[in-house]
């Protein structure tokens, strides 16, 4: 099963992980990406995420299709936030479940790497002396 959403509100981990839990799984692997207080030598105050929401959800589903096909996971849960995310708060949570841990580790890494390449979401970091879009440095 899959549960893929984007939301402005803070992520409540227990609520997310309650979706589709199965006793046939031997591994639940949870990745939490969060906002840190430093970036390239600057002190970060918070991040504002902009999203092309309808396409982002489609692209997340395409990534999950690829992941399910390659590693045969029983469960994939993804939540990505948009709008303002404060220091220390999760901006993304990816939870994958499989019979054995190897599939979970490999697929979790694949999902976050592909999200960073393909899903139309942009972070704007805010500092004490200004702000900057991050995608533009590429």
């Amino acid at each position: 099963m899959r549960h893929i959403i984007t939301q402005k509100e803070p992520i409540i981990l227990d609520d997310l992980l309650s979706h589709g839990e199965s006793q046939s799984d031997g591994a639940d692997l949870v990745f939490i990406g969060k906002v840190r207080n430093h970036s390239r030598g600057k002190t970060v105050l918070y991040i504002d995420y902009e999203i092309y929401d309808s396409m982002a959800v489609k692209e997340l589903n395409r990534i999950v299709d690829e992941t399910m096909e390659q590693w045969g996971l029983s469960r994939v849960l993804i939540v990505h936030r948009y709008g303002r995310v404060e220091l220390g708060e999760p901006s993304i949570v990816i939870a994958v479940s499989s019979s054995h841990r190897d599939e979970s580790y490999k697929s979790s890494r694949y999902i976050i790497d592909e999200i960073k390449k393909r899903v139309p979401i942009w972070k704007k970091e805010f500092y004490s002396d200004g702000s900057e879009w991050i995608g533009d440095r590429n």
Partner: protein
Amino acid sequence: MITIHLKLFASMKDICGFAEKKFTYDNNISVKALIDHLTDSHPEIADKKEILLIAVNEAYTVPETILNDGDVVAIFPPVSGG
């Protein structure tokens, strides 16, 4: 006559000063021609052309894509989610 729905995000939105706009053309044009058109009024785009990503109807595509009436075109800088 075709109508294109253009969406801009992140720094592209800031440069052009709008998030969404409709454009009407006499003929089917390419995404590249649309970007050139935007660059005429917003020269700062010229520095970004090489890194811009393009989606037509919510799927990634290349600048050479020819647009059809009613297409939704999104133009944006490299993504930075996660």
